[in-house]
């Protein structure tokens, strides 16, 4: 099954600047795709379209649900999105409550709180349950945001620069956590390590269009791909 199908997607900002131009991309379920490209090539804009936060011209289907106004909730239900910058992703004043808003509605407040603590434990963040997300370090903040989106158990993960501002140890920790997950992923990144350790495929974006889609082995042998990664 295709987890994501995008056909002829185009989008321009209000000032007329073209952000996406005729984007075509298909991702199969279970694949982890590293979306690479220069700054300003349209990676983040594409992720916002998939999540239904921007509304360009074209066809988008996520987990078999076609993008339309009436389907936005269903699409968002199947997607977990890690934004960049990550600090604006947090809604609640402490970590436990921030994870609670992602948990199923039928649970009682106490059950939600205990489940949130379990999620924090998985990410080694249980000592910060009552701390503000803004008090955490960059790496901890990324892990906390990730815990918040995974608690909803989405089928598709959109990750915008998940390793930004992280040191080597934190980056490896996040990669290890992500590699244990079975969800389909689209990861906007500049980091070579994401392609090497996590991705199964690489999509190359240039001037608002997808210019190449390769399996990771082939991608890492190409000069145009290597030049885009650090």
């Amino acid at each position, binding site marked *: 099954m295709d987890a994501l199908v995008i056909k002829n997607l185009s989008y321009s900002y209000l000032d007329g600047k073209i952000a996406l131009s005729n984007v075509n991309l298909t991702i199969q379920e279970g694949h982890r795709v590293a979306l690479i490209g220069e700054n300003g090539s349209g990676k983040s804009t594409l992720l916002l379209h998939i999540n239904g936060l921007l509304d360009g011209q074209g066809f988008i289907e996520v987990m078999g649900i076609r993008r339309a106004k009436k389907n936005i909730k269903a699409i968002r239900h199947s997607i977990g999105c890690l934004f960049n910058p990550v600090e604006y992703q947090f809604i609640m004043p402490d970590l436990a*409550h921030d994870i609670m808003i992602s948990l199923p509605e039928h649970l009682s407040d106490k059950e939600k709180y205990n489940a949130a603590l379990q999620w924090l434990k998985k990410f080694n963040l249980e000592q910060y349950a009552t701390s503000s997300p803004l008090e955490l370090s960059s790496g901890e903040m990324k892990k906390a945001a990730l815990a918040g989106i995974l608690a909803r158990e989405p089928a598709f993960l959109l990750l915008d620069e998940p390793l930004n501002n992280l040191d080597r140890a934190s980056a490896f920790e996040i990669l290890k956590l992500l590699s244990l997950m079975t969800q389909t992923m689209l990861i906007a990144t500049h980091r070579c390590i994401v392609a090497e350790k996590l991705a199964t495929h690489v999509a190359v974006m240039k001037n608002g269009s997808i210019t190449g889609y390769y399996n990771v082995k082939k991608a890492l042998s190409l000069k145009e791909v290597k030049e885009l990664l650090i």
Partner: protein
Amino acid sequence: MHIAKLAAFFLLLFHTLIPAQNLQLYVVVSIFLTLIMIYSGGMPSTALFFKNIPMFFFAAVFFVFMFFPGMTLSADKFLTLFKIILIFNISLAASSWLGRGGFLFCLKFISVQRLKLFLLLLSRSLASFERNVRAAAVGVQLRIELTGKQKLLVPKYYVRNLIMKELYSFQHSQAALASRLYDHNVTIYARNGFAVKDLLSVCVMASAAFADIFIQTANIKI
């Protein structure tokens, strides 16, 4: 414990608003109670000083206006100024004294989801604004030699940039709300913590505020 703390906080606020018959007692009790709240809340004195800078400015303007032609100096005006500064400091101290748990406890009683979200985002924005101001101050020190006229560049560029950054952040917050709260309500599990320090401060504050309110309103001569 949150209820007791909230009750003591409101009693203290009410205390600042009563007409003071015995001024010296009123001032001493007010300062004493505010200091208890500040120090049991764990707010460092430097943080308190910096947060009070807008109040110093306000007091200076208030003072200058009192010397304008047609204005008269009176004890009542000084008392009003004192009360304004006091209420500001009580609110400031209460934020650290009641803490995040107290804030969540208050939110639990709000049934309107939109209002709850507004208050959550407002508190988050204020916290991030405070962080950004600190970051901007460091940026200013690194990039501009703060001597003489150079100081004028700070409000000219950095304040504008700070405000633009906050406005830009609304877009991110909106995206977070749309993608995380599309069909969920905000739920709060307020844990009811208990600490001897808090109990003592609540008892002292409530009894002192209540005693002073009684003395002031009954006009008992001491």
